């Protein structure tokens, strides 16, 4: 099975890349999917550190009870900005970057379907974030009402309200254009023989995610537009004095917000479904079940939003509907977890860094899933609501879930992008240091939440002191560890002397591995002829 198409692997020297000359031409005006993918990934890495710095401020203030370092207003600003930056600046662009780099190569397309729009959808982002960050230097500071921007609290801010709302509009436009591009690429640009049910699972996960994006991001745009008109144009969508209802904002917001959490995890499922078969040297167990589970999760994500707001005083029937709906999601998610485990079962496993991150993903994401099922239970949620238990839950699914999957993807495909192997030793150091510190950081937060420590508040009862200190130490450790990640990437791209082969990994299958490493600037200008054994899923020998 290995080295299916050796002829393709060889002639790296004969490939003429025709890269544009000059820094501006190369990066500002680029329409090349690989360049734009790189831009997205570098941008999201930078935002990961900015959002991480905000988190360090939060953990430093919470290191001890009492107020030590920052004003409560600034603390609130940090929690709000940390959420916005990590969601819209780090995780979502990282997935879009991976999609840009990998989708055309995985389906045998020469580029994304709409390259100019691709350029635009990236270059909106830095300006959107510039605008968001500028609010921190305005009178009254940045947004302090949390990333969810619930009225009336969020509307009590100063100038930041308009600026942060417009920056969210811009991020939304960027993501919607990226999603349309991805749908067009996957539906229209597949090589002959690459049927829908032969596509790699990462491609499937992105196709479904892109549909979620175009369906729900406009709803967020509508919700924040209503906030804007409530604040500046005298409407009363959410203003009780004018006959509006602030609870309605929560319904509209979470109608976007719940699919949004799956937007941040479905591509991670896709990545793990690529990595685990490679290092298990076995095909993915239950490919079609995995695809249907993805679609099923995406559908259910639209009908469970109110589990974020069980305590607003919904009627019993509403609470029950959203509780059972939420618990239903555990079924397709369980299908995925068990299929990953079954893929590993009986395989000849090796644990290179991407596999380590993928295995940690399966275990730690499951812990986040379990706390999610606890939170779905209405009577329990009344106790957990707005406590650190919720914080622990969504950081297990977003940090050890989404972020770990992104790191797995970077280690997995970095040799394909750069043409060189990264340092396996330092990759493993990065993994183990991250895996230990992240649990030190977030696991104690479960106990804090069960004991009743509220989230988003700068001070706390002395009873919570020990666990907060442990959590903060884990936080600083996890933050510093990520510098190793940057070191490994920089070393691999600029200094590594170990050439990567075309296939890179012994067990890797799929069109992207039939290209030489580094992948040439223009790949698959002619659609590849897919032969038996080339694809990871689906036999084309018939």
């Amino acid at each position, binding site marked *: 099975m290995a080295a299916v198409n050796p002829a393709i692997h060889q002639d790296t020297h004969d490939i003429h890349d025709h890269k544009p000359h000059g820094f501006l031409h190369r990066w500002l005006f680029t329409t090349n999917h690989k360049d734009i993918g790189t831009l997205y990934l570098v941008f999201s890495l930078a935002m990961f550190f900015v959002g991480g710095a905000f988190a360090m401020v939060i953990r430093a203030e919470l290191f001890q009870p009492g107020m030590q370092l920052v004003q409560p207003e600034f603390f609130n600003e940090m929690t709000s900005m940390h959420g916005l930056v990590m969601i819209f600046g780090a995780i979502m662009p990282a997935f879009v970057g991976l999609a840009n780099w990998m989708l055309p190569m995985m389906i045998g397309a020469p580029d994304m*379907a709409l390259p100019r729009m691709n350029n635009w959808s990236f270059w909106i982002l830095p300006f959107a974030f510039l605008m968001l960050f500028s609010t921190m230097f305005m009178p009254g500071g940045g947004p302090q009402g949390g990333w969810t921007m619930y009225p009336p609290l969020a509307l009590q801010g100063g100038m930041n309200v308009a600026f942060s709302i417009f920056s969210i509009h811009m991020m939304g436009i960027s993501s919607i254009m990226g999603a349309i591009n991805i749908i067009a690429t996957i539906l229209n640009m597949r090589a002959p023989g690459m049927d829908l049910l032969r596509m790699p699972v990462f491609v499937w996960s992105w196709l479904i995610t892109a549909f979620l994006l175009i369906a729900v991001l406009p709803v967020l745009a509508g919700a924040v537009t209503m906030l804007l008109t409530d604040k500046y144009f005298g409407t009363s969508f959410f203003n*009780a*004095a004018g006959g509006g209802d602030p609870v309605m904002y929560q319904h509209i917001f979470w109608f976007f917000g719940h699919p949004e959490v799956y937007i941040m995890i479905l591509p991670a499922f896709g990545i793990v479904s690529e990595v685990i078969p490679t290092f298990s040297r076995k095909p993915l167990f239950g490919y079609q079940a995995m695809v249907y589970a993805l679609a099923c999760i995406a559908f259910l994500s639209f009908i469970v939003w109110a589990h974020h707001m069980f305590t607003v005083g919904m009627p019993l029937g509403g609470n029950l509907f959203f509780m059972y709906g939420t618990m239903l999601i555990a079924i397709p998610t369980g299908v995925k977890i068990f299929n990953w485990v079954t893929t590993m079962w009986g395989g000849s496993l090796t644990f290179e860094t991407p596999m380590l991150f993928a295995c940690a993903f399966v275990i730690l994401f499951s812990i986040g899933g379990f706390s999610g099922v606890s939170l779905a239970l209405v009577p329990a949620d009344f106790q957990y609501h707005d406590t650190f238990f919720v914080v622990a839950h969504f950081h297990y699914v977003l940090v050890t879930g989404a972020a770990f999957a992104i790191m797995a993807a970077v280690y997995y495909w970095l040799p394909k992008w750069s043409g060189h192997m990264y340092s396996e030793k330092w990759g493993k150091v990065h993994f183990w240091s991250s895996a230990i510190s992240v649990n030190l950081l977030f696991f104690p937060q479960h106990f804090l939440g069960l004991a009743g420590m509220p989230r988003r508040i700068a001070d706390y009862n002395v009873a919570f002191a020990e666990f907060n200190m442990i959590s903060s130490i884990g936080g600083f450790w996890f933050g510093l560890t990520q510098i190793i990640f940057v070191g490994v990437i920089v070393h691999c791209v600029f200094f590594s002397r170990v050439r990567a082969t075309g296939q890179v990994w012994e067990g890797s299958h799929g069109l992207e591995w039939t290209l030489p490493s580094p992948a040439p600037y223009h790949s698959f200008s002619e659609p590849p002829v897919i032969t038996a054994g080339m694809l990871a899923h689906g036999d084309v020998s018939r």
Partner: protein
Amino acid sequence: MTQQATSLNRSLIRTAGAVVLASFFFGFAMVPLYRVVCEHVLGIKLSGEAANATGLVEDTSRVVSVQFVANVNSKLPWSFTPEQSSIEVHPGKLTEVWFDAANHSDAAIVGNAVPSVAPNSASLYFNKTECFCFTEQVLAAGESRRMPVRFFVDPKLPAQVRQLTLSYTFFANEAATERLADTGSARGAVN
């Protein structure tokens, strides 16, 4: 790119753009939908319109206790209290109760009262024929006012409900207060 691929992409952009527009407007459609679902699916009455009390039949076999709660939002420098904390009524009997509000600031302020009935499943059966919450209330500096509410409990009220709570929260209507300061008169004032 081939001609065919370009036209495929064009039609896909059109379809996806239509989906984006539709979901943007769906966000706004949720505003009326929210009201419809509350009233017709979940059975919670949100509307503040006056009910029609003609043809009422009093059910003297039952007694329902109605409690009154009055709150003021922290941004409104008013006091606001019910004159009676609770009364007992027969379903189907039109009853009048009074609330007192006073403006303790040195400027005229427009306030809006937002009603709420608990338990919320009983809100469909609690009807007001007249209420100060139907309109904006303007209180001049230092002014106090007695305000009536006339209501009846629908005789179809489920038998297990023996007690209802009618609570009001007065909010500052900042837009109307500003208009009042600008023009010296408020629209929609009661008196």
